[in-house]
């Protein structure tokens, strides 16, 4: 019967464009993505393997490269947990309670994102540097902050400051306080409520925040560059060592080290995408996309 089979080509969908426009737009988007995003990524790896696998691994096992990798891992291992503790405390206070000045506090937490990385380093030099406010006192007590590990860690904490908190706050706000109130009214202590009720509810968002925080902590360049002093084998993180090698025209070694950071970025992106697919509603809340 004629009416049983609907027409193969229904009337043109009025909420989309004609096929030519569509193909052109897709082509523009793909070309732009290839030029701006993909090509630089490919160059990192082709340059890194320019001298073959042997040279690649030789550059990575140089003492300076290894010390840079070690320093980067140490810096991330301290600054990421510090910001996790902060993020949990801040989101607990902001999401579970109503108090005066809350939205202002939320704005202040995002502040480091709107400050240039170079300024993030500069502020610590002004505090702890040789001519800084505490410079004389620190010098008299033989404490090194600037051009040493503490300064690098402080600058890294500054630039990665909002990452965990800004993932947790909106989600915990959306989850409300009912479950916590139920737990407390049944006799659970504050810590127990936090560990067994709140934390499981936000674990994927927490992991998401940690992932982004860690990527930035390991890759930060501007802020760390100001406070590090770039002492080879001592205060050079991986990105700083990349810069030094590159400026010495040791391009292959620079790209070899850079390829490790690029791998970290790819791993971060992959995990982030998986988290968004699997647990999207538990990262951004039910209303998120």
């Amino acid at each position, binding site marked *: 019967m004629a009416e049983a089979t609907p027409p193969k080509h229904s009337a043109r969908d009025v909420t989309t464009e004609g096929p030519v426009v*569509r193909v052109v737009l897709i082509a523009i988007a793909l070309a732009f993505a290839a030029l701006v995003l993909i090509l630089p990524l490919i160059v990192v790896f082709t340059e890194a393997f320019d001298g073959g696998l042997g040279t690649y691994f030789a550059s990575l096992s140089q003492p300076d490269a290894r010390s840079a990798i070690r320093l980067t891992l140490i810096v991330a291992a301290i600054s990421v947990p510090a910001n996790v503790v902060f993020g949990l405390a801040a989101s*607990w206070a902001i999401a579970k309670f109503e108090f005066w000045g809350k939205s202002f506090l939320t704005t202040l*937490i995002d502040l480091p994102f*709107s400050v240039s990385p170079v300024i993030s380093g500069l502020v610590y030099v002004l505090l702890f540097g040789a001519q800084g406010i505490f410079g004389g006192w620190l010098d008299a007590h033989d404490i090194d902050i600037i051009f040493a590990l503490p300064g690098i860690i402080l600058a890294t904490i500054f630039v990665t400051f909002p990452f965990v908190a800004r993932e947790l706050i909106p989600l915990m706000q959306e989850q409300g306080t009912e479950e916590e109130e139920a737990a407390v009214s049944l006799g659970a202590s504050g810590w127990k409520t936090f560990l067994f009720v709140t934390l499981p509810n936000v674990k994927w968002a927490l992991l998401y925040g940690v992932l982004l925080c860690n990527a930035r902590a390991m890759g930060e360049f501007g802020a760390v560059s100001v406070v590090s002093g770039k002492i080879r084998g001592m205060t050079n993180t991986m990105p700083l060592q990349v810069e030094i090698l590159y400026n010495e025209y040791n391009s292959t070694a620079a790209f070899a080290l850079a390829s490790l*950071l690029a791998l970290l970025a790819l791993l971060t992106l992959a995990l982030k995408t998986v988290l968004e697919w699997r647990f999207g509603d538990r990262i951004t809340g039910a209303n998120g996309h």
Partner: protein
Amino acid sequence: MTRAIFPALKRPSAIPGFGLALGFTLTYLSLIVLIPLAALVLRSAALGPAEFWQLVTSPRTLNALRVSFVCSLIAASINVVFGFVMAWVLVRYRFPGRRFVDAVVDLPFALPTAVAGIALTALYSRNGWIGSLIEPNGIRIAYTQAGIVVALTFIGLPFAVRTVQPVLEDIRRDLEEAAATLGASRAQTFLRVILPALVPAILTGFALALARAIGEYGSVIFIAGGRRDTEFAPLLIITRLEEFNYSAATAIGVAMLVISFIILLTINLIQAWSRRRFGSG
């Protein structure tokens, strides 16, 4: 007395831990962010208005601020145009590799800036894949202001895409159908129905990309080269610090902070305006 004031500051709650959580938050925030930033402002205040003004308006500083601002404006504009096309294509069309492109948009957030910097320089320098194609035709990108624009475009792209994308996903298709039913062409529907709803998101993306670009250092430093006409503001801060000229570094830093706060304020105003106009931001 305290009991009279306290309820006004915090609503009573059955959940414990407010004092500890807020106390820790405020202490950590003050130590890491607020006191250091205050040190910058205090240091520049100690300069006195005359000296501060003289440092900020010195030709070299003005030039660096201009390079940063103009290149950032151009890059943010490029990002708005192509970021919009990318957001549109990712939301509206289905094509092979769509999910891959969607994931890769965040690459500039994840890739360390120094890595992006040397990669772009390698691409656009005379021997690079792109440089070797364009330099024989008299176009130089590496070590010019165009190179700075290229790096800032890379850095700002995700902001332009990611602010437009969710708003585009939420646009009601029935409005477009209604417009078509009432006889509007597709172009008219786009210009009169879709675009106005996206304007706040587009402006926010522009402002975010601009703010990020003005402060950017790592991806720009390599492709800018060390020339005077490509000296941008964050680089000049570092140069002044290396000369132990803290006063000049501080003055430029404060000037840049003021610029970022103006941009931040503009973003908030755009979002307030958008909420008034469209109900929700």
